[in-house]
């Protein structure tokens, strides 16, 4: 038997190939960007959608999940976009912040606080425009992220998004919310957000992913480039509609003496994968990653992260909490790599899950790849149920069972919530967590 080169097999794969052939000439960027897109597409053609025999995607078989892929969304008019956003929950409500609006993968400057941000020291450009001028450098990703199937597909199809740039020493007075809204018509989206923080810049970025319809497929990428001495907090809340398939990748590159906190809360989508790729490129930096994930009723959620300690004297902390309800499946894959020269690395990874039902499922895969000899690294993974003794104690004081369970789930998540540190995020996340619990009570 001869082994044929793999051809695209599924309807979804064919849909994606057709979309590329149809859209490629209209996708933004010069010749260099087109070449990046083409080589990413060629890689896709060879391997197809990631599936269970691809180690990194073992627990999240995207090929099996996607029956078809709807066409990539065209840019909506500002009025349509405004209506789409207005129809969705405003996660941060009245909280004071700058707002940047992306609808169906396209940035709407007209609905965004671009001028106010410019006055505060940050420039915002539509990605479609930026790709034309400086496309090649904008498309580049660190090695650990570049080979991934989802980031590859994002490179092929990203039609827009935005570039948020903080000048040296800039410090924003308010958080910047980037809304990733999907309208109610099923479509594919593939935006890319690039945040560059020059030396010593400080910012809090809130990304919210909302909306969508049965069959929507979003494959977003947020690329955070935090320069020397920058301090950046990015809080991502993924609450898309139940029928969507969502892949959200966050790529973080840290310079020297840089601090980044990446917070993720995932409650939405029928099938969601949250990927984080953290690359240390300068000494004395620290990355804190927090994950709060809650799923139930047929939802599948995957938290995958790779932390690459390529230089000495950096710290990383990961704390991921997952609550898995009836009929749902959670996955955590976390890998810390310590390269041969990365002495004095301190990496600590903890993942804990709470299963609320006998048919809830959780897969945990912590990995350490350590090639240096003077490092401190540890990982821990736990999986458990609500403690019956705790439940009885609360009930014996008159607290009804459902309320007692809610208290105990909140207690389980509290350690991660307390670590968030930003009041605006804590409040929004707590409200979401409570709403989630109330919906199941």
């Amino acid at each position: 038997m001869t082994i044929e080169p793999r051809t695209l097999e599924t309807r979804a794969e064919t849909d994606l190939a057709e979309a590329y052939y149809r859209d490629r000439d209209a996708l933004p960027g010069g010749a260099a960007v087109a070449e990046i897109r083409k080589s990413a597409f060629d890689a896709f053609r060879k391997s197809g959608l990631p599936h269970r025999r691809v180690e990194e995607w073992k627990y999240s078989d995207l090929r099996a999940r996607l029956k078809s892929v709807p066409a990539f969304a065209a840019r909506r008019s500002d009025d349509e976009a405004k209506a789409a956003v207005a129809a969705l929950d405003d996660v941060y409500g009245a909280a004071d912040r700058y707002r940047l609006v992306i609808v169906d993968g396209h940035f709407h400057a007209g609905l965004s606080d671009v001028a106010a941000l410019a006055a505060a020291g940050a420039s915002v450009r539509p990605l479609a425009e930026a790709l034309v001028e400086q496309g090649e450098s904008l498309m580049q990703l660190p090695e650990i992220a570049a080979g991934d199937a989802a980031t590859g597909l994002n490179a092929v199809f990203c039609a827009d998004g935005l570039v948020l740039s903080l000048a040296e020493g800039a410090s924003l007075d308010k958080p910047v919310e980037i809304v990733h809204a999907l309208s109610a018509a099923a479509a594919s989206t593939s935006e890319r957000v690039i945040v560059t923080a020059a030396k010593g810049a400080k910012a809090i970025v809130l990304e919210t992913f909302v909306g969508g319809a049965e069959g929507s497929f979003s494959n977003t990428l947020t690329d955070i480039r935090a320069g020397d001495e920058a301090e950046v907090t990015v809080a991502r809340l993924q609450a898309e509609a139940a029928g969507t398939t969502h892949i959200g990748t966050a790529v973080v590159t840290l310079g020297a003496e840089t601090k980044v906190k990446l917070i993720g809360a995932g409650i939405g989508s029928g099938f969601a994968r949250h990927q984080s790729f953290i690359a240390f490129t300068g000494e004395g930096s620290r990355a804190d990653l927090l994950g709060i994930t809650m799923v139930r009723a047929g939802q599948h959620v995957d938290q995958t992260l790779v932390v690459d300690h390529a230089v000495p004297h950096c710290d990383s902390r990961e704390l991921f909490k997952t609550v898995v309800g009836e009929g749902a499946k959670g996955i955590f894959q976390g890998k810390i790599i310590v390269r041969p020269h990365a002495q004095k690395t301190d990496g600590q990874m903890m993942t804990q899950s709470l299963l609320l039902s006998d048919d809830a499922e959780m897969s945990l895969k912590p990995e350490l790849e350590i090639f240096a000899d003077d490092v401190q690294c540890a990982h821990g993974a736990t999986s458990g149920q609500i403690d019956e003794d705790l439940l009885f104690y609360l009930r014996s004081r008159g607290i009804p069972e459902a309320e007692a369970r809610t208290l105990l789930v909140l207690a389980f998540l509290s350690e991660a919530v307390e670590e968030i540190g930003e009041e605006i995020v804590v409040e929004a996340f707590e409200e979401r967590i409570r709403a989630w619990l109330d919906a199941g009570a």
Partner: protein
Amino acid sequence: MLEIKNLHARIAEDGTEILRGIDLVVKPGEVHAIMGPNGSGKSTLSYILAGKDDYEVTEGDIVYNGQSLLELAPDERAAAGVFLAFQYPIEIPGVATMTFLKTALNAQRKARGEEELSTPEFMKRVKDKAGELQITMDMLKRPLNVGFSGGEKKRAEILQMALLQPSLCVLDETDSGLDIDALKVVSDGVNRLRGPDRSFVVITHYQRLLDHIVPDVVHVLSKGRIVKTGGPELALELEKNGYADFVDAAA
């Protein structure tokens, strides 16, 4: 009034029989002490009163104010006035003591059709009761029972009791792990709650608690049955001679 009638119970998981026919009547305002050696079923009785489902009642009934407690969930029993002070109060990381107290109090009030307490009114009540029990505000801000010493945990139990104002208080070895001073604080806390409408079932190994909380009636439990009932003098007799006489009598 609490009436325990021919109560038989076993461990649900393995069927081990623990209670073998307990009869007990506690009238309003009375304090009953239940004493007995290890393994006699004292703690099991307290858990069954509170509704822990690790145990299965195979025969008999527990009637409280005319209603069978066996038909009620633990939280419903609490709303009906039953309170168990645990021998080993449970630590609940992530739940602030204050949040817990407010949730519990308002849940009971809601179950009884009463209005929820306003935060200032609730705070006032907590501060008053906490002061009496030498519980600091700092303790109340910490997660429930987490990092509390043995004595602090027992005082926190009595604080809960004082706030929730139950009509039937079951104290399961509340004296265990307490030094003399803490024993006095806890006992004073209990004595302040004594009144014509409130009954107590005080489970203990030792006479010394009963010097502080003086019972009306003392029962000796052995091998899942009450084998002797008497006045406070029975506790003194037990302290002197041990349980051997009664245990043999039951065998």
